[in-house]
């Protein structure tokens, strides 16, 4: 554990990595504050820039955006009663009433501080458990990797918004996209239609930017209200929240642990953990605390949990190569494109990279605590910027970032195509996260499937002859049964008109 930190520390303690992590926290908070955007959008927007950087500086920046974005959504939830991200949906239960009672300053301070400390707890658990899990995963061979990749896709499909059937279809589309290009075993061109620009498949960043950023811009324009300036309370810098947080030590620790636990389960996500943590805190609280009417404990519980989730979600991502949600899927994609494939081999052959990521994650949370509180007035001001200025800027940044990947206008057409696909999928209630996870895990799934069959003497029986593989395949089958049953059950209900657009996930 400490060896990893020792190996990674020198890579992180360089000015570029430190500055970019700090900027990542600021960018993440700003993006998290803006309703409709969120940590995923922040990571997606900065992803193309990350490829021009050394690995730890790049991952430090992206992880900082993940952390900052997860915390930033609480600020708009508290000040406007609009959660900047779904992660902060539970925060408004008590955050907004606190603001109405004239305690917006305390609520925002508590949210930022609880997020940072919750994230740190998640980071310590990440630091402790990841090497153990990675050591266990060293026993994995192709059949186990195949079963794990399948588990990752099934889990994300089942827990994503919308029906599991749609989640599975989206995941299958991701698997299909991963097939496009040159087959690694035969060197045959698959589904390229004679276009050499597709010989490596569509660039994942172009697909991600299109699906999430472009479709989101379309939704933002469709929602109108381009010049609206919300009436936001002015805030000032205050460290009083740290003292207030001292009154909620147990709540803070419990919520961070709940968040980390749910984060480590692929697909569960920060919003689920925030609501469970809130419900637990409310149940265990003294009636005088008056949850739902502006209780400090409510803000602490939700924010500590949703940032604890970040650390938890990185555990399966780094050790097994199974991302917990769309944000960690994109982080994993970034790591792969930087030349490092997550999994036990990463811990064995590149401990300095794993250690650097751990240090970046822990330091990111420390920076969040300080910078988050110092820049609170700025974030309140960000909420006053009309959408009319933001939308073209985000669109241009997405375009340039995608172009910069390979200096190719072809990638821009890929981006636009997937922008349209993403919009149609979201309007039809398809989750986008399984598509991305399918695209990232598709290569792992296929290569390990074919390798397993190659080393097998009994064909597909290899998947159930090996104990670990058999255990994971059993879980896969159980999940499939759950999906079939839930699909049949939901088929009995008739349609209802969708009234509110869910953010992309």
């Amino acid at each position, binding site marked *: 554990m400490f060896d990893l930190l020792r190996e990674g520390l020198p890579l992180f303690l360089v000015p570029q990595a430190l500055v970019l992590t700090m900027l990542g926290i600021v960018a993440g908070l700003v993006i998290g504050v803006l309703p409709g955007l969120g940590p995923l959008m922040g990571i997606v927007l900065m992803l193309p820039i990350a490829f021009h950087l050394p690995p730890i500086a790049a991952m430090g920046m992206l992880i900082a955006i993940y952390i900052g974005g997860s915390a930033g959504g609480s600020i708009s939830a508290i000040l406007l009663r609009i959660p900047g991200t779904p992660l902060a949906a539970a925060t408004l239960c008590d955050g907004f009433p606190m603001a109405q009672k004239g305690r917006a300053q305390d609520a925002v301070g508590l949210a930022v501080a609880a997020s940072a400390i919750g994230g740190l707890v998640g980071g310590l658990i990440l630091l402790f458990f990841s090497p153990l899990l990675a050591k266990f995963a060293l026993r994995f061979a192709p059949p186990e990797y195949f079963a794990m990749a399948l588990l990752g896709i099934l889990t994300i499909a089942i827990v994503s918004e919308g029906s599991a059937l749609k989640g599975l279809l989206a995941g299958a589309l991701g698997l299909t996209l991963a097939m496009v290009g040159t087959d690694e075993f035969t060197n*045959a061109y698959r589904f390229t239609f004679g276009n050499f620009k597709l010989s490596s498949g569509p660039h994942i960043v172009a697909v991600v930017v299109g699906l999430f950023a472009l479709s989101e811009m379309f939704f933002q324009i469709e929602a109108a209200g381009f010049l609206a300036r919300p009436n936001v309370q002015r805030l000032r810098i205050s460290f009083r929240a740290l003292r207030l947080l001292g009154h909620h030590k147990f709540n803070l620790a419990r919520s961070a642990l709940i968040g980390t636990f749910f984060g480590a389960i692929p697909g569960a996500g920060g919003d689920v953990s925030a609501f469970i943590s809130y419900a637990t805190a409310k149940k265990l609280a003294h009636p005088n605390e008056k949850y739902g009417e502006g209780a400090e404990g409510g803000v602490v519980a939700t924010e500590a949990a949703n940032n604890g989730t970040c650390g938890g979600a990185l555990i399966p991502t780094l050790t097994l190569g199974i991302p917990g949600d769309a944000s960690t899927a994109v982080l994993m994609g970034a790591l792969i494109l930087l030349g490092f494939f997550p999994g036990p081999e990463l811990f064995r052959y590149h401990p300095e990279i794993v250690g650097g990521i751990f240090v970046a994650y822990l330091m990111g949370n420390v920076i969040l605590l300080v910078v988050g509180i110092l820049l609170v007035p700025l974030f309140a001001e960000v909420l006053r910027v009309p959408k009319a200025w933001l939308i073209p800027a985000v669109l241009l940044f997405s375009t340039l970032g995608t172009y910069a990947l390979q200096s190719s206008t072809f990638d821009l057409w890929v981006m636009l195509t997937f922008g349209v696909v993403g919009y*149609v999928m979201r309007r039809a*209630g398809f989750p986008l996260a399984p598509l991305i996870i399918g695209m990232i895990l598709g290569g792992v799934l296929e290569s390990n*499937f074919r390798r397993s069959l*190659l080393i097998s003497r009994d064909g597909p029986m290899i998947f159930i002859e090996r104990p670990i593989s058999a255990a994971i395949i059993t879980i896969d089958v159980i999940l499939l049964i759950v999906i079939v049953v839930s699909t049949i059950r939901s088929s009995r209900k008739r349609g209802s008109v969708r009234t509110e657009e869910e953010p992309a996930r």
Partner: protein
Amino acid sequence: MQRFRDFAFDWIAWAIFAAIPAVIFWQSATSLAEQDAASGGPMENAALYPRIVASIMAVLAAALALRLVLGRVQQRSPLEARAGTRPALVATGVFTIYLIVLPYAGFHLATPVLCFLLFWLLGIGPVAALAGGIGLSLATAFVFEGLLNVVLPVGAFNIALFS
């Protein structure tokens, strides 16, 4: 017909998902077979895994179609315009034209026009939109061209400002 209208976006998405297995089987039987990569053991058969995924996808698409026909989808997705649908479509059209023009006009000519049109479309006054368009274009070009050394499209006029 009413049911089709109620679930219009679902049907459009379904058409995309239903077409994919058909394309996979077609390509496996033609392009991959021509490359001698559609038969044999797991190493030689590049069509084995795609066919499995396509089969699963076809079953899933059939199940979704059945649910749509029976109206058993939890949320309807009618093809209804929203307050900003028209500007959103115009913005998409402008952006598509931008992508067509970009290789010929170059980044530094095409982008200020794109930004101006988008700002203006979203309700910002023409002078502010023009200033904003030029400013945003220059700022992003500085970051990508100047700091990250990305060669932005120079177009027929070979314009590069920061490299």
